[in-house]
């Protein structure tokens, strides 16, 4: 019986991949005031970013209710005894916590192992893909988890923000707090390390910041996979992808859109790059 892989919508997985690998995605609730939307179900990324700039009230995110996890795991129990549930960093969200509560109440049937990706967006997504591929290939529960953890160790994230305001107001600014309060109009580059946002650099123009992003990622060693995600700037994403392709013609590059859950905290103009280092022989 194949292990089934579950994740949440912050993984920003391309729908085709979800379909192909039989991944189950639990939508994150996105709240505009008292209106609750399910990310990817009731609200698309495009719709979200449009609303973000016009909404008088700042949207927030919340972890999926424990009940949703329970329901999901119970439904999958029809097909498998073993589930690996990989989620957004536990230090930025209560999602892993909710998942764990649900798993515990199932008392081993099915067996559910929760994995904290310590990351977000495709940083989480790449771990999920590795796990799902291993599961597809018939790996055991432990092997599936190991596959995810292996990618976790090799993944690097970098995001360029137009402003730190959204991160700050959403309370996820972490160590990037050091970048607040600049007199100059500086574009922050941040990363997620050990599950928390860390500052990387501040650059004076967006153009230079994009150059810097490219350089940082290229400096990560031999790359196995690359993902570029944008919120409201598809042209920038396309341009970055092009430049990566020129340097790394054989590496698969995925270009996609950041989901609302991360859009809430990054704000419009956010652009992210996630790379997975190749395994060392």
């Amino acid at each position: 019986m194949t292990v089934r892989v579950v994740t949440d919508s912050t993984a920003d997985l391309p729908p085709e991949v979800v379909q192909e690998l039989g991944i189950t995605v639990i939508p994150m609730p996105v709240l505009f005031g008292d209106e609750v939307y399910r990310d990817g179900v009731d609200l698309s990324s495009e719709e979200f970013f449009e609303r973000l700039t016009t909404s008088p009230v700042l949207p927030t995110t919340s972890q999926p209710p424990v009940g949703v996890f329970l329901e999901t795991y119970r439904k999958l129990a029809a097909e498998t005894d073993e589930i690996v549930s990989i989620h957004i960093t536990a230090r930025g969200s209560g999602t892993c916590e909710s998942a764990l509560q649900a798993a515990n109440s199932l008392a081993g049937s099915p067996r559910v192992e929760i994995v904290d990706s310590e990351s977000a967006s495709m940083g989480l997504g790449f771990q999920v893909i590795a796990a799902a591929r291993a599961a597809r290939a018939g790996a055991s529960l432990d092997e599936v988890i190991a596959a995810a953890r292996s990618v976790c160790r090799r993944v690097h994230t970098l995001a360029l923000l137009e402003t730190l305001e959204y991160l700050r107001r959403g309370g996820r600014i972490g160590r990037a707090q050091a970048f607040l309060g600049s007199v100059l109009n500086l574009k922050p580059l941040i990363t997620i390390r050990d599950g928390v946002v860390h500052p990387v650099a501040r650059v004076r123009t967006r153009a230079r910041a994009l150059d810097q992003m490219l350089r940082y990622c290229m400096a990560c060693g031999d790359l196995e996979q690359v993902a570029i995600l944008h919120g409201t700037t598809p042209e920038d994403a396309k341009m970055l992808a092009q430049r990566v392709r020129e340097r790394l013609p054989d590496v698969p590059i995925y270009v996609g859109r950041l989901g609302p859950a991360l859009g809430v905290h990054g704000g419009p103009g956010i652009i992210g790059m996630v790379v997975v280092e190749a395994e060392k022989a």
Partner: protein
Amino acid sequence: MGTSADRRESPARSARAPGKDGSPASSTAASDHNGRDLLEMFAAATSWLERNADAINSINVYPVPDGDTGTNMYLTMRATLEEAFHAKSDDAGAVARAMARGALMGARGNSGVILSQILSGIADRLSEKESFSGSDFAEALEAASEKAYKAVSQPVEGTILTVMREGAAAAKRKARRMGSSLKSVLASTVEAAREAVSKTPSLLPVLREAGVVDAGGQGLYIMLEGALRYVRGDTGPPVALAARDPEASWLAATASLHEGAEPSYGYCTEFLVRGENLDSRAILGEMLTLGDSVLVVGDESLLRVHVHTHDPGTALSYGTALGSVTTVKVDNIRTQAEEFVTRPRRHGEGPVARVSTVAVVAGLGLEQVLSSIGVTAIVRGGQTMNPSTEEILAAVEACPSPEVIILPNNKNVLMAARQAAEHSTKRVKVVPTTSLPQGVAALLALDSEAGLEENALAMEEARQMVRTAEVTRAVRPTLLGSLRVRRGQAIALIDGQLKVAEESLRGAVCASLRHMVRPDSSLITLYYGADTSREEAQALADDLAREYPSLEIELVAGGQPHYHYIVSVE
């Protein structure tokens, strides 16, 4: 030999009778000058320098309002004398060494640093001597000249170095030939120095074009002349103060005014007034209506004033109505208490960088810019960007990290910064930024997790990517290359070179940009100074946005003195 008080009060050395004309002993006996003589000679030199400081400032090659060689040399000498007075010694070697120490720490500006090397050379030669002769002094001057040349990485003729060298050479020639009275040695030195100064335009084309002699050389010549006047006994009208230790007593008097238990508010205001028939009582009365902690010292031609007031402007206006006001110092008393180091706002749990940074800045807005980027410590450059070695060193030592990078942000601070780096107990490097925008770029390149070498390299690369223009009004006419500048014209120094002269400040900014903007440029930053209104600056920024639609324009309130605009292009 009596108590130290006796030594201080009696003008004549007790071991020798004064000369018939009342001048200090001028016998031809060898080794007849001691530490006290050395100190008084240099005190006289410093007094003479102070009187002429403005004149020296005004011949700065670039006709910019913060040309301050005279002030820098004077302040360096003031620090020199303070240390020497503290030595309280008759031993020439001890006094010379104390002077060298004081100069080293108090050195301001490149000219100040070279002066400190001159004093160091003198100290080297006189170190073992309790008393010295004319020929000893000639040798000391020679040592001073050698040390001065060594201090400069690329010595240029037609500067203070030439004046020092030729003065020392003349001193040695005199000492060999005609016996070794200090007076005759000094006279030859001064003669040769004067010649050398007048020759400087023929050695340095930029001086000839500007129609001036070299300011540093002039300063040195004036000091030597002051020393000679003392040795000859032409003391002239006393400068400023009645006490024997003019600086020490002024400092003591004003220091006690700052030691009150009540926290003071307002501005600590000091200035010199030169005029005729100055009435110190009247001035005292006037100052007392403006504030407290008043001190007025001097005579009817020169008065030194100190007052704590909320209205420094009125105090200064009163002074300018009476005569010519110089050596103005206005400090916010609250922040003065923090000395020279300003700690930036800590933004909560930011990571503490492995390498600390110290930046020299003039301008409140510019301070805020650097603080907000996370500089560890700021050294205030003051009106003319001339912090002393000591001020920079204090900031370095106060940094939390054992590795520190100094950003001088001005060509004239570079040597003092290097001195500070050399004398620090920490591992320190100087990234030779010559403008504030270079400093910003360097600071943004700081990697909080990398070490000293890596960061110094990254910062050096970053600073070279910025081009800077500093825009101000010419304080006198000049000719540079084919550029003819009239007094009052708006001029721009582009990366330190005077390239632009226009009628208006806007015109100068636009012309500078034409020099600096390249096809790959992406950002223009306009830092407007204390003399520029926000409206004016905004209007200019709007125009620039229209003229350069593909570039970002950033407007920043810099608050810098003298330079109406500092413009950077990256």
